[in-house]
């Protein structure tokens, strides 16, 4: 495997490399370097946070892994395949829930299945289960307009689960929610990702959130977008919300701030 900024023995609890980036660069137009020379190596079951200010290339990195945009140079591999287009083993979540207003929660969750084949009873059962997993039992037949912002994001998460993908890419999924809702959803997200044993790339500009959720935090800096540092977060799971006030936690926060501040 490719050597990265982290030590190999720290990753022993995780599986094989599933996402790999080698010297990945993305230039928009002629001059805007959104991401420069990014190297990363993400293992099965790992939760990685990408944190940094606007324009640091974190969303670009996510979209490159998702196959939604094309790299300018370097290589992005998922499960040892070069990424060239959107893949079925990857599921995504965005800042907006992007639900279809004319479909009920369960009909929205069934969308990924519809893309592949005719809806079966099995798909419907799975969608009911996905909705239950995100805490929306009893809301299956509500329309998006009848749900709060937090609940809409839960539907979006259930839709992601429905894809059956074991790699989850999330682009500031709780960024538009209030602080309380965001905190609650973070706790649940950890539980769900743990249950599904999914590999997760989570983009955020909130340092606390990034550290609380992640096994490793990739700190990114702008102009040009770069991975400045990769920090291990060694709290045991399941993690209680109270770790956020601990000394160790705050040391990591300082470390992230230092990296961001020195650029």
């Amino acid at each position: 495997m490719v050597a990265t900024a982290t030590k190999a023995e720290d990753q022993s609890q995780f599986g094989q490399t599933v996402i790999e980036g080698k010297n990945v660069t993305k230039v928009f137009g002629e001059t805007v370097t959104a991401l420069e020379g990014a190297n990363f190596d993400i293992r099965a079951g790992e939760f990685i946070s990408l944190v940094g200010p606007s324009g640091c290339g974190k969303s670009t990195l996510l979209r490159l892994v998702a196959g939604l945009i094309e790299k300018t140079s370097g290589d992005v591999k998922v499960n040892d395949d070069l990424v060239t287009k959107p893949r079925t083993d990857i599921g995504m979540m965005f800042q907006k829930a992007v639900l279809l207003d004319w479909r009920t929660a369960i009909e929205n969750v069934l969308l990924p299945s519809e893309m592949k084949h005719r809806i079966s009873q099995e798909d419907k059962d799975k969608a009911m289960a996905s909705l239950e997993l995100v805490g929306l039992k009893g809301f299956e037949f509500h329309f998006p307009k009848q749900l709060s912002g937090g609940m809409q994001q839960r539907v979006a998460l259930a839709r992601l689960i429905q894809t059956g993908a074991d790699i989850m890419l999330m682009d500031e999924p709780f960024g538009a929610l209030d602080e309380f809702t965001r905190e609650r959803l973070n706790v649940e997200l950890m539980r769900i990702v743990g249950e599904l044993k999914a590999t997760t790339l989570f983009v955020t500009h909130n340092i606390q959130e990034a550290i609380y959720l992640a096994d490793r935090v990739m700190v990114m800096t702008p102009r040009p977008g770069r991975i400045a540092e990769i920090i291990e977060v060694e709290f045991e799971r399941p993690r209680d919300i109270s770790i956020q006030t601990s000394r160790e936690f705050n040391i990591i926060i300082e470390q992230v701030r230092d990296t961001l501040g020195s650029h």
Partner: protein
Amino acid sequence: MSYSTSQQTKNISIFKTLPFHLLIFAVLIVIWELTNLYGFEDQIQADMIAPRPTNIFLAMLDIFIIDKTVWKHLISTFQKALLGASIGTAIGMGLAIAATLSLTFRKYIKPWIILMEATPRIAVGPIFVALLGFGLWSAVALAALVAFFGPFVNTFQGLMEVDEEAEEMFRSLGASRFQTFWKLRFASAMELISAGWKLATASAFGGALVAEFIQASEGMGVLIAQYVIMITMDYAFAGLLSVTIFGFILFKIMDYFDYRLIFWKNDYLLLKESEKRRKKAGIV
């Protein structure tokens, strides 16, 4: 150019203002009646310029109930209007879909659309009559021509205005072009498309009437023109009133259809639809 309506907003206030509306209407009718009786030196002249409301009412009774002349003409006009609206809508939507799917097609069709927009479409009427004769089809053609524009513009605009994040979500799900088109773009455009249908119905109705004025064997345009030629102005006004009433009914039907179709814009319908789908799935 696009058009949409907000329905069901002032249902309550209308009951408060209704008596005043009726009062104003009654006063106007009385003034009109008195003007006919006392405002002219010559009764023939009076009946020509301002036929008495009571006579118009009697004429309405005659054409609807006693002589029943109006029905065949109403049916004929509606037939032309609805056929024209359907054909115009089909062509308008078809061209709009093609224009959104193909950049090349969009580029080549643009000057023609501008040209059509600049042409007063009603002016094409006599040419259609010359080409297609006095019967049904010249009126249908004119109705379709005037109806075409609303659905075209609305469908085009609706399909072009796609939420970029939703499109990215569809791409991440590996949706085909076909799936993205129907499940996302077309469905999101439904609100504007439905408004386009309403526009098409209204303009096709007008188009059919104008075609009948130009030349036709039957229809409300013909009937009104005949009454005017015979200088039976009370009957002409009765004909006009019939067109207004039935046009109003048609537009209300279209409004209701739109209201039910775009159910997710209305909290009450959303609640009902939610219950319906829950029951359909067998979950109570």
